[in-house]
């Protein structure tokens, strides 16, 4: 059995699956049940300043996108940070830490962007025995209108400044949670690192309108005839999150900074992909909110069997394995040539590949009167669209041409050596290959 124990920026947990700061971690009752189910850690629902607690809307706060069978594909919310008092949250956190000493307990914090607020609250929270802090610079709705959340996360200077205040207030690890609602994730990540952050976590939710009620002519969820932008999360956001994680992992300025991967993690496989792209652990929110805490069993069992199968002994062996293979477009090998191949035995003759290629791609699929579909090698540019629309798995595959083979489309022989755009004769800036 592969060892799933995780040590993330000095915080240890029995597995790399944490619950993200959100409703699943909003109170002792939930967290206790989550730990009993097997979750490795939690980032407690974001705490705010002392005083009268935050208020939430009293109408619907979630909207969603579904597949045909109501599979939830994307979730959007207009919830704010915890709406329970700081005192109660702190008491509960202390009790949880005492009862579950082996689990990771991280406090998420968001207070106004003034030094004394942060310097007061951080030591106070530390007294509960938490293992670290996560600074919520990500929430894109409500709190950002008050100059907090993503309003801070969108200004690298603020991130650096607040991170430094926190680091000055505690010896515990400080994780900076980043918003994806920016142009280039490297800027806020670099700022966090400059400010002394021990790690970053990402992504928080993406600013979104999930759908429009066409009768009321208002965004969903609708509160008394009006709606507002909310934060988007769940399976739909995973590709965006994976890319941001990978960019931080591979960019020299931020390379090596521990990353907690968040965004659409729903199965063990999603988690493995985040780890491969450089995340040290993962956090989950929507999947737990959709299916309940029980999914942790699928996640831990799945990850560990896959690791056994591949011969990986520990989580650290997976972390970042795919990062060297994430590159810029300009370095992709332009001499690598493939052609689509249709397996006639498994083809069910639906013609979707034909429609896709004929109408929208390269007119490279022939259709016979008796519905046999074949690829015209002299037209196929290997775009992969036919593979993506084919309903039968592995019916259409991309087969690589060997060096020396004729590419019927270009009339050229496939070159054996690697050749990219920087060396290409059509590139005015081309450098000669060394």
């Amino acid at each position, binding site marked *: 059995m592969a060892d799933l124990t995780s040590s993330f920026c000095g915080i240890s947990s029995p597995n790399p699956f944490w619950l993200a700061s959100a409703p699943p971690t909003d109170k002792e009752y939930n967290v206790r049940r989550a730990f009993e189910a097997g979750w490795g850690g939690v980032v407690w629902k974001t705490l705010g300043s002392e005083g009268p607690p935050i208020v939430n809307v009293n109408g619907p706060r979630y909207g969603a996108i579904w*597949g*045909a*069978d*109501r599979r939830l594909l994307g979730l959007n919310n207009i919830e704010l940070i915890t709406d329970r008092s700081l005192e109660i949250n702190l008491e509960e956190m202390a009790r949880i830490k005492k009862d579950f000493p082996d689990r990771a307990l991280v406090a998420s914090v968001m207070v106004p962007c003034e030094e004394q607020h942060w310097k007061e609250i951080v030591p106070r929270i530390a007294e509960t025995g938490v293992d670290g802090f996560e600074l919520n610079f990500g929430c894109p709705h409500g709190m950002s209108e008050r100059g907090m959340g993503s309003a801070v996360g969108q200004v690298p200077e603020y991130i650096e400044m607040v991170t430094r205040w926190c680091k000055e207030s505690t010896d515990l690890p400080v994780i900076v949670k980043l918003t994806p609602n920016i142009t280039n994730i490297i800027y806020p990540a670099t700022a966090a690192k400059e400010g002394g952050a021990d790690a970053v976590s990402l992504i928080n939710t993406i600013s979104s309108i999930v759908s429009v009620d066409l009768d009321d002519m208002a965004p969903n969820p609708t509160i008394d005839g009006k709606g507002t932008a909310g934060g988007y999360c769940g399976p739909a956001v995973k590709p965006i999150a994976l890319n941001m994680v990978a960019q931080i992992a591979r960019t020299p300025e931020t390379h090596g900074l521990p990353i907690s991967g968040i965004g659409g993690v729903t199965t063990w496989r999603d988690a493995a992909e985040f780890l491969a792209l450089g995340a040290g652990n993962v956090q989950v929110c929507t999947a737990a909110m959709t299916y309940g805490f029980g999914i942790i069993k699928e996640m831990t069992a799945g990850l560990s069997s896959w690791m056994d199968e591949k011969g990986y002994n520990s989580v650290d062996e997976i972390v970042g394995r795919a990062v060297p293979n994430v590159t810029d477009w300009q370095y992709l090998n332009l001499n690598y040539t493939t052609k689509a191949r249709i397996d006639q035995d498994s083809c*069910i*003759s*639906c*013609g*979707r590949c*034909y*429609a896709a290629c004929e109408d929208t791609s390269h007119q490279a699929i022939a*259709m016979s009167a008796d*519905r046999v579909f074949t690829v015209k090698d002299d037209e196929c540019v290997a775009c992969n669209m036919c593979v993506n629309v084919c*309903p*039968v798995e592995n019916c259409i595959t991309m087969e690589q041409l060997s060096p020396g083979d004729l590419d019927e489309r270009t009339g050229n022989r496939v070159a054996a050596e690697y050749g990219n755009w920087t060396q290409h004769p059509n590139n005015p800036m081309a450098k000669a290959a060394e």
Partner: protein
Amino acid sequence: MASSGQVEQLESGRVTKEQLDANFSDLHPEFDSHEAAVAADRCYFCYDAPCVTACPTSIDIPLFIRQIATDMPLASAKTIFDQNILGGMCARVCPTETLCEEACVREAAEGKPVEIGRLQRYATDVSMRSEEHPYTRAKTTGKSVAIVGAGPAGLAAAHRLAMLGHEVDIFDAGVKPGGLNEFGIAAYKATDNFAQEEVEWLLKIGGIKLHSGKALGKDFTLEDLSKSHNATFIGIGLDSVRKLSLDKENLSNVENAVDFIARLRQSSDFSKVPVGSNVVVIGGGMTAIDAAVQSKLLGAEEVTLVYRGSQKKMPASQYEQEIAKSKGVRIIFNAKPVSIEGSTSVEHIEFEQTENGSAANKNFSVKTDHVLKAIGQLLTDEPQNLELEGSKIKVNALFETSVKNVWAGGDCVSAGDDLTVTAVAQGRDAAENIHSKLMGEG
């Protein structure tokens, strides 16, 4: 509907009323909107989809399914009705397993086609429940067309002609319109008086007058119609049933399956419909299967269906055969009746085992108190002067008969194939051709 024997001494009410209700409930109940969305999601929207080719009325199936998937059932129904105005009935009675669903690529892929029939039913049911009839009539042409027969062929022709602006009179010999939709289709395929509701709905387009109880050859002639109307369409179906030609065929409780089915369909209380305890059905088509299954559902203890050919040759689809077996019908292949025995009413039937259609010198006898004959319907009362092909009315590709200005379609013509959907397609196409002819004449 001439019956060769009478039915007497047979019991009704063999099973409880609750059981009867359950037995004759909808074979494929309507989808709710969520089920429809899930089923619609399975459609691949194939290029030049094979299901469309397989449908005799060429409904644009991928399009109507996509319209269900996008929550537009009314638009979806319009796509269906544009090609097949009896799309509601066809959704219930078409042997989809040998038509559209057989052609579905998912049938090839995984043996589970998209449920086209049930999706069609969903869209058409939603539409037929809505207030509006989806069609309006074109400006009146001042032309009139007589339709003989209010079965699927005649109704489809009538609707199309009315839509194109002609005045239509339908004459039907029966007391109720609908043809076999009303008298023949199995009760569990068209529940809740659907056949009549569908006719009422179809007539809402306006411009169609229905004259029930008016028979061609009895109450009027083709010549009369040629005087009163600009064109005539004949859709009279098949009027009689092939005989076994055996000595004691007239014993009581030996009857035509279609008569038994019609009696059942016209009954408002199935517990009053008599049926034998040992029923023998002779034949291998849809009628034979329906008679056998419905006898069983009425409570017959033993139902034996005897077909003279092999299982492969049986006209009823594999799926229909499975339904019969699942209801407890015993099917015997390769056997033909050689004598009917009994004093006043039937007591048993002798069968001869056949091999490749010829006698194998092995006889067996089946005890029975109720014999249902379903070895094919015929046209015997064909209108005078019309040229026949085989025993049916001869038509060309435009559904014109040998008589000027007389068109025909459905079961009664040589091009018919004993399917509701084919009758609809032919009625529709004949109507289009009548229209071209009438308008061409100016």
